């Protein structure tokens, strides 16, 4: 079963992404903060994480750093509302696998998530 963790402080975004991916035979968990995301990664053990950059408290970059420390294999796609170059660069440097900007193109997102899953399958 493909496992996806969606992290966004906007509950609505988590929800429609959840329904979208569940429609496509994913097992989906959601988190609304960086701290929440770290717990979920440990408990849920996702293959791919969709991680919003701007969040109150522990933000996406902070969460990414922690995730990379303990789970180097999990694929992380950063989601950002604003294409600020320095944030994106920082994310790529910290080991993000890709980034997409809001509003999201679900077609592109689905393809990208599937690519990451396929990649993991190949390695395994």
């Amino acid at each position, binding site marked *: 079963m493909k496992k996806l963790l969606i992290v966004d402080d*906007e509950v*609505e*975004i988590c929800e*429609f*992404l959840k*329904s*979208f991916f569940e*429609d*496509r035979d994913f097992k989906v968990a959601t988190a609304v903060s960086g701290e929440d995301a770290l717990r979920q990664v440990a408990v849920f053990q996702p293959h791919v994480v969709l991680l919003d950059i*701007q969040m109150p408290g522990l933000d996406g970059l902070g969460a990414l750093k922690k995730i990379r420390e303990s789970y180097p294999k999990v694929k992380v796609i950063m989601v950002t*509302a*604003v*294409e*600020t*170059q*320095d944030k994106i*660069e920082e994310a790529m440097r910290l080991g993000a696998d890709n980034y997409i*900007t*809001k*509003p*999201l*193109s*679900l*077609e592109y997102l*689905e393809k990208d998530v599937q690519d990451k899953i396929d990649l993991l399958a190949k390695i395994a």
Partner: protein
Amino acid sequence: MRAPKKVLKKVLVGLILFFLGGLAAYLFPFLLPFSLAHHPLLPIFIMTGIFLAAFKPIERSVKWFLEKYLFHKKTFAQMTLMDLAQELTVNLDLQELSNLVVNTFGEVLHLKSVALLVPDPLQNNFEVASAYGWAISASKKIRLAVDSPLLKLIHQTGPHVLVRGLLLQSLSWQEANTLSRDFDVLQAGWVIPLFVKGEPVGLIAFGSLYPDTVFDQSDFQFFREFSGTIAQSIHNALIVKRLRQLNFELQDSQSQWIQKTKLNAIEQLAAGIAHEIHNPLAIISGKAQVLLMQKGPKQLEPNVQESLNTIVKQTRRAADITRKLLLYSQGSRGPRDWVSLEKVLDETLALLAYQATLDQIEITRNLDPELPRFYSNVQEVREVFLNLLLNAVEAVGKEGRITVELKYRREDDLIEIFCSDTGRGIPPEHVDKVFNPFFTTRHEAVGLGLFVTKQIVHRYGGAIRVESQPGEGSLFIIQLPRQTEIPPAAEIKNSGTVEVTAQKV
């Protein structure tokens, strides 16, 4: 009140001359050819004309006569000069003031040349503010250093008129030689220093038409008094000029500061807005997309599907506005690298290919085989191509041609981008405005595309302009100086082609 008086005077003079003309024609008919003398009015007109032509010399000689025999000539000149001095106290424009001084001086005293010099604090010398009897180009070149013999002497002697002939006789040969050079430069026989509170604020240098001209003691007394008034007004004018300049500089730096603050504010605002707006947009667009991409037996009605597509498209447009604002306000902070313009152009064309085929627009690209890579931020370059092409597609509408040409002008080391279309063109009154922010002729457009494009082009030291013929199409031309700087070592690692390009440089 002066103007009507002048007109009245002219009319009176005209009437008197007309009367004199009539009188002359009546008294001396033999002066005119026989055929004309019998005309009733013509002789009068002709005689009046002759009087008119002769009036100025007559007026002058009468004045001269009066001056010579009835008044003391110099008193007349002095009175004119005192009038001038009075006028000077109300004028604060340095140029007008010095013009007035040198012209009156030159004309009243019948001088060959007059020059008024004022200090130029930046150059540490005195420069000509205005000159009479000089070729303009010649007077502009004259500069008198603060440590020149003449100015040193003025510092010593104070506000006394310097007479060349007398001075040179009283000095040693060596001193006279160096001093006479300064007089020569100014074409002067006399120099009147202008002092305010013991500090020289300028000098009037003048030379006479006749070598034997002399001014007597009373003249010098008058010069001294006169120079006081002029000095004060020149001093005031200099202060006003300096204040104006300072004020201008202040305004300039203030507007720069405002511009910078404004940009900072825009950036923060744009970043804030982008974050706040993109989230709701993501939800709206996301939910519409979820409905559109639903799997299973549920098939959407065509009109519902169309509406959902519009929702997705419009949210993307809204997001585009904030993204552009942010891009503009951020300035060039994105990472730069050696970018293949060809590759970026092709990526951009691929984005537009579908729409272009739908609208039957033929897009051709012409590439210079020697086109070098351009050291830039790839996102900014993409933005430029995208804006140019989107505009072109929009201008063409249906059926037409768009040509993009990339050229390298080796002799100037310039990269040129030509984007031409066969669209409806730009009306002449809009050509100046197309690069202004929020200028658009379309209801559904924001009007930031070309503005942002221009900002980006400027960021790379380039230029953009448009040539357009309404009804025939437009041509956008961008010129970018090739960036010859070699990127820092860290960035070279990112692209294998850099070393090759760098070697070529």
